[in-house]
């Protein structure tokens, strides 16, 4: 297997982008990645996307991207793994370069959620239609059930979850691409509109349009394109029950733990070696579960991490310095790639006032469904 590097990144602003179409967003992010590497062409494209068919009635995004990028004849494939589609697209691109099959491969992610669709209904299709959705389950509802199970098992409180949102917005306020660049107080979070008890609006990631892209090539060719390549040390992925209903323990995201074990093993690293992480905080409780499943804190101690500053900029292990899904926004198919963009910028020392000092190794964890898929990549600045 060849060593693989990220040599270029691009992303659009995240938000309600009423003036931009799905294809506009895809092309903008991809052109950004190509330009930042000074690359003229590509060998292959993978695009992560959860549900363009339902959101805007458009499938077949691989060919669409190749066509609208004007790169004639290049193969394009859409990768779908619900909200983990972006991370899985990156994994596919990584495989194609590592295998020796292709040299320049684009991993992109895009979602256009604000175009009039029943967003709650579309997102719910990532859970189990027959077992859960039929009876009225929603995504926030499923994570609310995870939250209640975590509260029962570990004594986690609504206030603990609220500190995660306060931190997310403190970080996102500094991110020029974030959907919500503003601070929120603990009181704002705890008095925001109820969505699915015990989760309130400010415990939930928003509905977002956006795209992101990273360009990969073999590490031994990376210096042709950039002075600061970032090596992909590992890719680890796993699945769990599609339905939360069938999960043995609903308080712990077993899928995150399994994907982490695989990624750490491939990288030859332990949780203590990670300098910063972007994790899939689709809901505040998910970030708490991820702290534990990724081994950043002990099981049951995740609830204290955000309040105590452990995961803050300057803390022991800064998490979601970008603002996370909560403040940066969560265009579902783009999220996994946007996480990689953040980690790469950090490892290149290009993150400005959000820079984690001395960051050399970073982790990105992207999740699909109510914890049915998880994909983790570990990166190292070269």
């Amino acid at each position, binding site marked *: 297997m060849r060593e693989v590097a990220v040599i270029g990144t691009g992303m659009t602003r995240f938000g309600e982008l009423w003036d931009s179409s799905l294809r506009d967003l895809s092309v903008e992010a991809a052109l950004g990645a190509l330009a930042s590497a000074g690359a003229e062409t590509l060998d292959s494209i993978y695009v992560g996307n959860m549900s363009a068919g339902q959101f805007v009635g458009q499938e077949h995004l691989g060919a669409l991207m190749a066509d609208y990028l004007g790169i004639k004849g290049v193969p394009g494939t859409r990768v779908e793994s619900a909200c983990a589609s972006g991370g899985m697209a990156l994994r596919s691109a990584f495989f194609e370069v590592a295998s020796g099959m292709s040299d320049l491969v684009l991993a992109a992610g895009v979602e256009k959620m604000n175009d009039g669709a029943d967003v*709650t209904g579309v997102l719910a299709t990532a859970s189990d239609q027959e077992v859960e959705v*039929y009876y009225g389950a929603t995504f926030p509802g499923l994570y609310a059930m995870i939250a*209640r*199970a975590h509260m029962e098992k570990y004594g986690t409180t609504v206030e603990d979850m609220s500190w995660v949102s306060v931190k997310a917005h403190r970080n996102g306020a500094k991110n020029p691409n974030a959907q919500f660049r503003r601070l929120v107080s603990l009181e704002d979070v705890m008095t925001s*509109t109820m969505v*699915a008890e015990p989760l309130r609006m400010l415990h939930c990631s928003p509905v977002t349009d956006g795209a992101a892209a990273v360009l990969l090539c073999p590490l031994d060719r990376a210096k042709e394109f950039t002075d600061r390549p970032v090596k992909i040390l590992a890719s680890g992925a796993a699945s769990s029950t599609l339905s939360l209903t069938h999960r043995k323990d609903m308080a712990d995201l077993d899928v995150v733990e399994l994907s982490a074990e695989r990624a750490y093993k491939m990288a030859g690293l332990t949780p203590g070696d990670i300098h910063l992480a972007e994790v899939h905080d689709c809901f505040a409780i998910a970030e708490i579960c991820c702290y534990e499943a990724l081994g950043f804190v002990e099981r049951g101690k995740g609830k204290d991490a955000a309040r105590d500053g452990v995961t803050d900029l300057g803390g022991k292990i800064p998490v979601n310095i970008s603002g996370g899904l909560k403040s940066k926004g969560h265009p579902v198919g783009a999220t996994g790639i946007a996480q990689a963009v953040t980690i790469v910028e950090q490892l290149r020392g290009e993150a400005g006032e959000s820079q984690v000092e001395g960051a050399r190794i970073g982790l990105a964890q992207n999740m699909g469904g109510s914890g049915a898929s998880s994909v983790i990549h570990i990166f190292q600045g070269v």
Partner: protein
Amino acid sequence: MPSPRYIREIPARYRLEAGRCTECGQVVYPARKVCPSCRNQNIEKVRLSAKGTVVTSTVIHVPPDEFLNEAPYAMAVVETPEGARLMTQIVDCDPSAVLPGMLVDLEFRLVREEKKSGILCYGHKGVPAGT
């Protein structure tokens, strides 16, 4: 929902038919072809007791479009005495009172009306035990 799918799912939804693994005894609802515990493919039909205990729960305030008229409503994962778990609404009580440990009976109810096809979708909902 297309009507063939609705008809296909009637045994599970109307009669609470689940599958029991003839090898390890695990009961899964609805029935599957492969046991998720031991991968045995010999699965026998079993009808679940129409009762159980709430394992975890929520109250949905922002529903999908088809449930707009019902919000806020309680949903829970319920474990039956056979060890099967199913997700269902819990009704005929204060939604906020639906918490882990609550005992419920499962009753046959109208679940929703399918918007496109107009199919009336039936299934089970939980109610407080003994009511």
